[in-house]
């Protein structure tokens, strides 16, 4: 394992006019790590994600992928460097079939012959092979989440960013998703933003807690989630 972490964020700041959404967050993710980001609404988790993936350009601070600064790179370039993103609301190609969607994803980073194999593999891993010829627009919300995940998985990124992947899924789907994410973490590093505490306990080893644009605490899941300060921010009491 190399000494340089896969991804480092250093003092990231994001200001929207007078509002500081993220205020000096530093974080480091190693190869093959599965990390959960938690925190109340408006804590800056999604904004932080968007700075990592290039959808937002940070007001200050640095993001390094394998030691190389990627601040200011367009999202498409960061994607090609091996960062896959699953957005909060499923962002899919409504007018395409499931297979065509995954094919577009594989095409973006792979030569044609390899791409074809990856498509079937990604569909199988997400267990949506039976939906391959369906139009994405006809699918239920949970299935659309899986299609988006399949697109990300087909690219085999080094780092996968998942923004609330369990949102809107049924209990059974959530359970399966948990297993899937743990499995994904065997081949990629994964960062998950999630609200569902049971879900986090099931999948995460390390948890980073965000509050008001800053990292409140970071540590093993069992410890971080029982920290009194964390309970305070989740119950809405003042952390001080």
């Amino acid at each position, binding site marked *: 394992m190399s000494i340089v972490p896969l991804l480092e964020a250093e003092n990231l700041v994001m200001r929207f006019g007078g509002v500081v959404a993220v205020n000096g967050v530093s974080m480091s993710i190693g190869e093959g790590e599965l990390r959960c980001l938690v925190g109340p609404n408006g804590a800056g988790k999604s904004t932080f994600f968007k700075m990592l993936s290039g959808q937002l350009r940070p007001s200050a601070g640095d993001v390094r992928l394998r030691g190389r600064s990627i601040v200011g790179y367009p999202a*498409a370039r960061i*994607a090609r460097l091996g960062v896959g993103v699953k*957005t909060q609301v499923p*962002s*899919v190609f409504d*007018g395409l079939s499931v297979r065509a969607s995954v094919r*577009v994803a594989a095409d973006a980073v792979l030569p044609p012959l390899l791409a074809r194999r990856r498509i079937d593999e990604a569909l199988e891993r997400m267990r949506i092979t039976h939906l391959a010829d369906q139009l994405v627009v006809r699918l239920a919300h949970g299935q659309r989440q899986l299609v988006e995940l399949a697109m990300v998985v087909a690219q085999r990124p080094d780092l996968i960013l998942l923004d609330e992947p369990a949102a809107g899924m049924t209990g059974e789907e959530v359970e399966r998703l948990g297993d899937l994410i743990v499995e994904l973490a065997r081949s990629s590093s994964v960062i998950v933003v999630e609200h569902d505490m049971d879900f986090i306990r099931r999948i995460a080893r390390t948890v980073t807690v965000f509050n008001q644009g800053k990292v409140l605490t970071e540590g093993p899941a069992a410890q971080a989630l029982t920290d009194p300060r964390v309970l305070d921010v989740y119950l809405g009491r003042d952390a001080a």
Partner: protein
Amino acid sequence: MSIVLRAAAGYCVVALASFYALVLVPQGGDVTVMINGAIYSSYAILALSLALIWGYAGILSFGQAAFFGLAGYIYAVAGLNIGDTAIAALLAIGGSAAFALVVGYFVFWGRLSDVYLGVITLTVSLILYRFINQTAGEEWTIGVAPLGGFNGIPATPILTWFGRPDEPLMPEQIYLLSVGALILCYLLCRLVIITRFGRAAIAIRENPARAELLGYDTRLYKLGVFTLGGILAGVSGVLFANSVFVSPTMFNLQSNGQIIIWVIVGGLGTLAGPVIGCFLMLALSTWLGTLEGVAWADPNLVMGVALTLCVVGLPRGLLPTAAMIGDAALAGIRRMRERRPSPVQTVEERP
């Protein structure tokens, strides 16, 4: 199954239409039909150019006629000056492609939204229209070619084969060339949309943000499709210049508007649909023009009514509606077969 069947049926129809246009019509020997056929075919390539960029890449260019007219004028001016019109034709198509590349660069790298794209392309076309319209004087002569203001260039030279500038093509040959070009352009578009590039363009139309997150530089793909649209419009402009002659009306609002009408009537998101829409609407307005004593049947008015009826009655356009009816009929036949068990099975089922 139904997709395969539909594709096969589509190719059969295209093959039959091509056979009719390339073999049967020339055998008939009616020159008027062939001159009209050449004009229709050149316009149909213009329809294809918008069908490709709007229907498959989601780029609504309101000024596709700018590339059409520009190519026509480059062809006429270069042809009069050089003499070898085959070279002039290549220059014209290259010129309209380059112009599309430049316009597209500013539009897509400026990250302009769809509405602005429509406005800007239309404005570009109308600026060209105003400019060419006022070039009536002696001072507006390029080499030996007078631009001619609102009269255009009636002396637009006729296409020749490469290296044989003294043998202009006959109207029959222009007709065959135009129909052949239409078929080739159609097949080219079909080919483009199944390549990796075409699939990416379609994905970008569906969801540009997702395409970016998958690693596609959406600007590059849009620029590519838009430039290809400029090339098709350029081919169309050169062929039109050979069937009629170049004039500022090539750039005007009516030219731009009718391309959009063809695509909407024929079916947005298809390639053959807009070609059919173009032929039908042109045939309708030609027929209206031949009517006598019906002053109320102003072609523009009738076209407007036809468009409105189409949008209200067939919101998806002629071709998709026909395909839907075909699918429904097929499903109906299948259901009827299932309901009626075949006699052979009955015999086997007996103990």
